[in-house]
């Protein structure tokens, strides 16, 4: 059978799609930022001698990484309000879910990153008389961020793709808008081709941009 | 002790030795750079031919062309009468099929600088793989042959060790056993002691000397000048992709004709001194 492409419908709603794309990116960036804080804190928790703390963090990481994101989204959005934990709106609910999800992956990233800072730099920092917190703040942390930069990039791309699940709770990001165009106009191929290409191009651009940043900041060989 | 009964048989008779390897005008380029500019070389049965030369002279590349680990664009190499790698069909040069290539390679042994033992197999399994899969030998028979050759290289008690449990010298001896066990017409040795710690070099050279004595035809790329002097029957000096000088080792080392060879040998002054002292 033949299919006649007609992209005019898409062009008419292209701005809606772009807004959806932007919204997805925004949700991903916010979640990455919160997730990074969670990951750093938990990463440090892994390095303490407190076994209970380490066990809790381990439980968090293992639990979240083995759960489907969609289930977590539903649980937070539909489940938690049932026991009195309410959120401002679905955006907040989604960002919290995605941040907790990201945090589990980023904990692993920072745990590995923190341990791979060569001991000699810590010793050098001590030798010039920096206090422990200064050593962390001025030496270990900057080095850790440079080490984990590629993983952060990959996580941002994954999170951006994960924002497509927000469509399940009717957040109007790109996938949601594509579904609406699909449903309203029956321009099935056009809608999904455009959405796919937009995702693809965005992931590609993020990857390129972040590789430039990595090149600039990768000081440790 | 004979690796190659045919070899000792011919050496006893008055017949002239067969030409095992005949290379004619071999050319090879990597992109724009021509690394082999027409190599002609003949190796007769039972000979130990050493290829010497500075790094980048093309000796390793030439060695790798012989079992087609490198393709070459021009010229021909025959091993035991069988043209290696390519056929002439109606005047056009064609690469042999993968199957034919594999069969040819099975008759040419090779030992590498970096051993290249299969890390997921024990020493015995390394030796057995080709015997079982290429020669179709029964496992028990292959095992006893592997044990025989591992004993010959002094590793009878290491047959069931994995490569990571062996020293470099031991790994290289397993690699030699793996090559010899296939009963090849010719074995190629590619700087086999270069990756070894100095104290492990002699154990590998010892095994090679032993093989040479048993009549195995060997083509050796080496920087071990003492070994070359004592074991090789013929030495070939390559420079910038060409054979510059060749001959009997003592003669070549004593009276180098070209400046390039003199300069090259100058780097091994202690050994040259040793040779001229004789």
């Amino acid at each position, binding site marked *: 059978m033949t299919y006649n492409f007609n992209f005019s419908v898409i062009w008419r709603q292209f701005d809606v799609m772009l807004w959806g794309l932007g919204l997805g990116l925004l949700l991903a960036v916010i979640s990455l930022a919160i997730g990074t804080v969670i990951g750093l804190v938990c990463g440090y928790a892994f390095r303490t001698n407190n076994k209970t703390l380490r066990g809790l963090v381990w439980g968090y990481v293992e639990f979240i*990484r*083995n*759960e*489907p994101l*969609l*289930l977590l989204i*539903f*649980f937070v959005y*539909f*489940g938690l309000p*049932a*026991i009195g934990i309410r959120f401002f709106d679905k955006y907040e609910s989604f960002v919290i879910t995605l941040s907790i999800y990201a945090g589990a992956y980023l904990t692993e990233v920072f745990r590995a990153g923190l341990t791979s800072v060569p001991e000699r730099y810590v010793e050098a920092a001590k030798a010039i008389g920096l206090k422990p917190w200064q050593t962390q703040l001025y030496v270990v942390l900057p080095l850790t961020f440079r080490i984990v930069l590629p993983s952060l990039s990959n996580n941002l791309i994954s999170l951006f*793709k994960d924002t*497509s*699940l927000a*469509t399940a709770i009717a957040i109007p990001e790109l*996938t949601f808008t*594509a*579904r609406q165009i*699909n449903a309203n106009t029956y321009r*099935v*191929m056009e809608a*999904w081709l455009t*959405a*796919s290409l937009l*995702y*693809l191009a965005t*992931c*590609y651009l993020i990857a390129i941009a972040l590789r430039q940043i990595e090149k600039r900041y990768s000081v440790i060989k | 002790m004979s690796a190659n009964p045919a070899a000792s048989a011919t050496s006893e008779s008055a017949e002239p030795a067969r030409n095992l390897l005949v290379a004619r005008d071999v050319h090879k380029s990597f992109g724009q750079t021509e690394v082999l500019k027409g190599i002609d070389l003949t190796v007769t049965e039972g000979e130990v031919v050493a290829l010497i030369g500075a790094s980048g002279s093309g000796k390793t590349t030439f060695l790798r062309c012989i*079992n087609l*680990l490198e393709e070459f664009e021009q010229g021909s190499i025959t091993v035991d009468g069988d043209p290696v790698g390519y056929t002439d069909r109606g005047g056009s040069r064609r690469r042999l099929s*993968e*199957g034919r*290539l*594999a*069969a040819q*390679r*099975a008759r*040419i*042994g*090779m030992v*590498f600088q*970096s*051993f*290249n*033992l*299969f*890390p*997921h197999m024990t020493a015995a399994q390394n030796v057995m*793989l*080709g015997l079982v*899969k*290429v020669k179709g030998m029964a496992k028990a028979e292959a095992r006893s042959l592997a044990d025989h050759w591992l004993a010959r290289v002094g590793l009878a008690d290491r047959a069931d060790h*994995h*490569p*990571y449990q062996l020293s470099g010298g031991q790994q290289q001896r397993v*690699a030699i056993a*793996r*090559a010899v066990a*296939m009963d090849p017409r010719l074995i190629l040795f590619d700087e086999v002691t270069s990756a070894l710690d100095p104290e492990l070099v002699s154990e590998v050279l010892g095994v090679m000397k032993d093989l040479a004595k048993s009549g195995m035809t060997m083509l050796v790329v080496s920087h071990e000048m003492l070994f070359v002097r004592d074991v090789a029957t013929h030495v070939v000096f390559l420079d910038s992709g060409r054979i510059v000088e060749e001959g009997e080792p003592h003669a070549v080392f004593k009276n180098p004709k070209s400046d390039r060879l003199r300069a090259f040998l100058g780097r091994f002054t202690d050994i040259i001194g040793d040779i001229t002292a004789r």
Partner: protein
Amino acid sequence: MQRTYLGELMKAKWSLLQGFITTMEISAIVIVIGLIAGMIGGLLLVYGPKPVRLLMRLYVDVLRGIPVLVLILFSYYGLALLGVNISAYTAGVVALAGFCSAHMSETFRGAIDSIPVGQTEAAKAIGLTFQQRFIYVLLPQAARRIVPPAINTAVEMVKGTTLLSIIGVLDVLLATQQTIARNYMVIEFYATAMLFYFVLNFTLSRMGAYFERRFGFIRY
């Protein structure tokens, strides 16, 4: 009458069991297809003739650059439009298997590429053919590097099956939601589903760790 969790669980047991079977079935199909296709795809990425290599590269990068949910929806609405009369189940499996194959191909490629060239050369030198080199030399060594990322992908695929609930495939998640719609025990039944996915994926991860140790003796 007071509703109890256990009572409701008993009431929903057939529906949940159906969901369980569907989730397990789709996961297994997708992972097996992904492994086989990934092995072929990985080989093509490394040894294929240039045009094939480029096409495979395009396939792998495109599928990995698009969210799985979009692939699923595309496959669901798109295939129906092409006149292919297929169920949501099939459309979903096609999308997930395509995605899984792309990831596995990349995993296999990485594993094959990471084996030192000398291994192939040594295998050639003793006269092994291409198939023999792959089966006896490359694959056993690649296995060790393939296991951790392949297990990760497998876990991602099990998680990915939940997305099929969006197009109406009755998996564990959809069965759970239908149960909740009847009895309003939101927390209890979502928690039950969470426990299920955790046990399944955790087991998979541990299996991965076991196989990793099993191949751990390969060192260079």
